[in-house]
């Protein structure tokens, strides 16, 4: 979307500029290769490129006992949090659009509070308190803490998205809804929010990336997700560097795929014409 716009920041190069760009490009490539070589030599002399450090990941056991169960937990927590965040965002987004001053105020305070508080604080608090309260099995407390923490934060962000999405719609949408005899709430639910959600879909998918990434905070509260299990592999095989690189690579691939989806959706929507 932004690429063609930016290429015009500089003119179509003439012969002299072409040579200069080529020269700088070669220098750039050399500098990057130098950086890579420097890293590779450093890693090699520290023994981090030794095959036995990486071979661990050729064994099925590491994957079936650690990486895949961890990945499953990460995806589970993220998937549940996405659903609950949408629910939370829908409810409080409606609340913020309500004409009832009390509902509007309560929703505003809740949304602003949870957007301003670090997710990790909520998770730490929920983790300890849930384990002590006896409401959940103590060993399940990290999972609930992660899901609830992610829901409160991301749900609040989604509530804001829904509110700004509805505000971005043409007034005529609501007026038409009311003209055909819908109540304010019905017009919101049936006409405005569906359109706002579609318009906000790319931002919504970006928020899912945040949820997936932040689920790794569960590592700090002993939730046995991907990073937690990756660290176990690293400790057990004394290949911490390699394990964290693999875990990071899995996260990067998943998030990159999601962000590609967001940009595809965004370009589909923008080519769909005005709503």
């Amino acid at each position, binding site marked *: 979307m*932004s690429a063609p716009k930016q290429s015009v*920041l500089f003119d179509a190069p003439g012969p002299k500029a072409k040579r200069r760009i080529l020269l700088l490009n070669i220098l*750039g490539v050399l500098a990057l290769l130098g950086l890579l070589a420097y890293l590779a030599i450093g890693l090699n002399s520290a023994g981090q490129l030794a095959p036995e450090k990486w071979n661990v990941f050729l064994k099925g056991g590491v994957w079936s006992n650690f990486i895949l169960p961890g990945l499953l937990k990460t995806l589970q927590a993220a998937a549940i949090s996405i659903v609950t965040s949408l629910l939370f965002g829908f409810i409080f987004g409606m609340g913020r659009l309500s004409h009832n001053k009390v509902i509007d105020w309560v929703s505003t305070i809740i949304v602003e509070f949870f957007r301003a*508080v670090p997710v990790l604080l909520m998770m730490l608090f929920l983790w300890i308190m849930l384990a002590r309260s006896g409401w959940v099995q103590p060993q399940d407390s990290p999972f609930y803490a992660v899901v609830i923490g992610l829901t409160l934060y991301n749900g609040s962000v989604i509530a804001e998205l829904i509110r700004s999405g509805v505000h971005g719609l043409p007034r005529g949408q609501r007026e038409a809804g009311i003209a055909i005899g819908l109540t304010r709430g019905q017009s919101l639910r049936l006409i405005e929010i569906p359109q706002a959600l579609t318009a906000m879909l790319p931002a919504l998918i970006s928020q899912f990336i945040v949820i997936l990434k932040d689920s790794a905070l569960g590592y700090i509260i002993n939730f046995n997700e991907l990073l937690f299990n990756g660290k176990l592999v690293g400790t057990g095989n004394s290949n911490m560097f390699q394990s964290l690189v693999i875990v990071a690579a899995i996260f990067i691939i998943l*998030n990159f795929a999601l962000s590609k989806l967001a940009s595809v959706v965004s370009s589909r929507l923008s080519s769909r014409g005005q709503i």
Partner: protein
Amino acid sequence: MQGYLSLWDEYGARIMESFWTNLQLTFWAFIACAILGTILAIMRISPIPSLRAFGTAYVNIFRNTPLTIIMTFGVLVLFGVFQLQLSSDFNFNFFQIAIIGLTIYHAAFFCEAIRSGVNTVPLGQAEAARAIGLGFLPAARLVILPQAFRGAIVPMGNVLIALIKNTTVALAGSVAEISGLMKTMIEYRADLGVLIFLTVALMFVVIVVPIGMLVTWLSKKLAVAR
């Protein structure tokens, strides 16, 4: 209430000290990520393909890596495996490694903030800059970036707010900051758990909400009139 006041007697100084650490992390990491992010943004809009590719790769890699992994990497790999010693002081060493981690992560977001600011600059500006004979770097420095920064106030403010909150993740980097202290306090005084959480949470609200308002105000005040 009595119990809550006794908590302040016992932990008050440490609460302030820990929160001060979070603010210091924010300060240094924001300066560093602004510099690195701007350099990356210039690379990403430059005519040189290799630099563009590097900027894009950097952003895609670090924007998609959980900050928790970067922080854990700092303490378990940079320190644990490679024995990185930036300072002879044990705690200060972790503090500096945490700043590096926060910088690397947020620079990717800062770069994208600047780039979104660049997108608000009308094409005519770049064309006019070329027409008066400016090359890429002078045009970027004198014409494009000053307007881009002003158009990027809101996304840059969002990076700052995210950074303030993300300093709590330095807990995974063995830094004595507020979320670790909150954990200790709740474990020790579970009867006051809710109050302890609300206290620490409000400290963030008090910092983050005014910054959010300031950003909105600044973005309106500094908006380029077109």
